[in-house]
């Protein structure tokens, strides 16, 4: 047999065997529904994990938001006025924020988050986005000895209210949003661990499906590596919790810099997903969900890293993986 024929035959056999194995394995795998938990420090960080969120029809997505985002300066009237560009398509926050740490600020941030998901679900039907106007409020959840507090402008609150959980369930059973209230800017490792343990323990009571919990995926944090620097304490606390505490579910991931020595996988947000979140019209009008719903939280157009990881929001996303 001629050499080229031998090689052609070899490559064909390898391709056929591997293709057959792949198809067989995939066909024999039962479509088991799992719950993915996206651990988001603030209600605008979810896109940092979007490459592992979009287009996954078998996975019930729970956005576990650790804080209400109430510390943002954009809840102050003067900053909000300077940042909001309603004429550019940015949605006016509702209710009108009444200053940092105010109840209106919290409600506006929660509404922006739900609005973002709702708009994203229009282009990606696997995303939960059909929410009731009002949350189901659960709790106060037992603290298990962990002090659960939030610090508002130097005042520490550890009352029952901070252990209440606001839950929005998607009417089409695609996922849910679970808001904890651990304090914007002061969410600690122990508090986040408590929140995630509570989610695992009480999820079904809160209306989540009775399905195995798969991966827990934390939003981006990075310090000292040549990507976008983001050592925000709440983000770092999420990373610490997911890195150090085994919640006994699926693997635990954290979005990080590609050059992080712990980095184990990378994925890219689809062009459609990117467009759905960040598209601008020719005149700069915000079309994408991120620009529209979170525009009031940034002075200019949200910067998006074109290809690398030079901005907080990036299509090329990398993750470390623990407890697998």
């Amino acid at each position: 047999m001629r050499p080229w024929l031998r090689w052609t035959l070899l490559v064909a056999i390898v391709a056929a065997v591997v293709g057959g194995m792949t198809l067989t394995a995939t066909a024999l795998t039962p479509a088991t529904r799992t719950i993915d938990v996206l651990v988001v420090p603030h209600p605008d960080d979810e896109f940092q994990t979007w490459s592992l969120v979009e287009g996954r029809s078998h996975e019930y997505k729970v956005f576990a938001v650790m804080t209400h985002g109430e510390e943002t300066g954009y809840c102050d009237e003067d900053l909000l006025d300077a940042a909001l560009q309603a004429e550019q398509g940015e949605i006016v926050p509702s209710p009108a924020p009444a200053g940092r740490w105010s109840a209106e600020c919290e409600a506006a941030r929660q509404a922006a988050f739900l609005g973002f998901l709702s708009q994203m679900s229009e282009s990606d039907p696997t995303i939960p986005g059909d929410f009731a106007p009002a949350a189901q409020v659960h709790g106060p959840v037992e603290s298990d000895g962990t002090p659960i507090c939030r610090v508002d402008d130097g005042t520490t609150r550890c009352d029952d209210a901070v252990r209440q959980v606001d839950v929005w369930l998607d009417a089409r059973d695609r996922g849910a949003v679970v808001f904890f209230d651990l304090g914007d800017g002061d969410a600690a490792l122990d508090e986040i661990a408590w929140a995630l343990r509570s989610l695992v323990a009480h999820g079904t009571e809160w209306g989540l499906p009775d399905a195995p919990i798969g991966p827990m995926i934390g939003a981006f944090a990075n310090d000292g590596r040549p990507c976008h620097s983001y050592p925000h304490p709440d983000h770092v606390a999420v990373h610490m919790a997911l890195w150090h505490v085994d919640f006994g579910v699926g693997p635990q991931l954290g979005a990080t810099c590609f050059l992080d020595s712990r980095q184990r996988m990378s994925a890219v947000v689809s062009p459609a997903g990117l467009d759905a979140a960040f598209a601008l019209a020719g005149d700069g009008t915000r079309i994408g969900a991120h620009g529209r719903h979170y525009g009031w939280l940034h002075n200019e157009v949200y910067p998006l890293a074109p290809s690398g990881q030079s901005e907080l929001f990036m299509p090329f996303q990398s993750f470390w993986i623990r407890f697998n």
Partner: protein
Amino acid sequence: MSAPEPTSVEVSSAADPDFTPQPKRAGVRIASLDWARGWMLVASVTVNSILVMPSWFDHATWNGVNPVDLIFPVFVTLSGCGLAFAMARTVKVVPLLRRVAVLFALGLAYNAIVEWSLDVFTWRITGVLQLYAALVALVGLLHLVTKTWQGWAAITVVLAFAHTSLLTVYATTCPAGVLTRACNPSGPLDALLFGAHMQAQGIAGHDPEGVVTILGALVSASAGATLGHLMLAVRRRAVAAGRGPATAIAPMLAVCTGFVILAGATLTTLPILLGVQLPVMKRLWTAPFALLIAAGTGVLLLLGHVLLDRAPAWRVIEAPSYPLLALGRNSLLVYFGSHILMSLLRHPAPDGVPIAQRIADAIALFGRPQLTFTLLLLAFWTVLAVVLHRRGIYVRP
């Protein structure tokens, strides 16, 4: 049992199984493979003798690589190198198939002993010897395609990407694209082919093992065959030019670097394109895992080649290397024999204490039962290998 195994060859007379090491015009026997196998066996016997294995040292429960995970892949890589030596000239299909059948049967018997069970429905059908048998068959058949190091390098590339394709495409069906104990192709495939008991989601310790792992191990074996054919080719040229083993340094290091680059390519192409994880791990014998170990094994082979494969040999190196060479010449016997022996010794005595622990306690010197026991086992297997080597007895199917 047979005459000296042809997995170690003398360049000028590869077909002569009774060849004994002696300086010749065309060179001396390539001893570096036996030397490297000898080191691997020292590590294997030592690791197997550990009575209470720390978790950080034992096989990784799933993801990651612990020290024990390195032993068998090194063995497989060196076996690929040995098979390249043996099949450099010709592939005799009938003896090859006979060898495969014997290895497979021995493997089943080996598993019966290790598992301490005569229930065939609980046996590891694709246990380590059976995996080795499959590799012998596949590497033999692939030698019908090519017998050059360049050809084997190409096969290694094809197999590495084939295995990576299987894992990464399947991983797109897993939550977050992460291959877990519950979500990997070995589960459905091996359960279908060999029975549900073959996949216990990693809990059984050895699992998953089956077709996915065999394909991964084939990457190790083909990388080893690449190294073997390269050594032969370089050696042939060096002998013709009257040069020594140092001639192999640049090409061997280049190929080892190539393995590292290929490992990087498998990690950064398909996984990122598909948005999934390709772990470096033993359990699924992923291509980057196989290739990184092959690179390290290649460096070990090169070191042995430079030290030993010269005429005349350096006496100061040759004499102390003799036990390693003896071990390496009977690598199948020592590798699997030590596993079987320890399997038997780990069974509890009537008082519930493992026999191995009893022996270790009884022979402990200086209050060090583990150290004494390990040294005793190393001495036993080394002496046995030396005696067999002196008598020219080599165990191979």
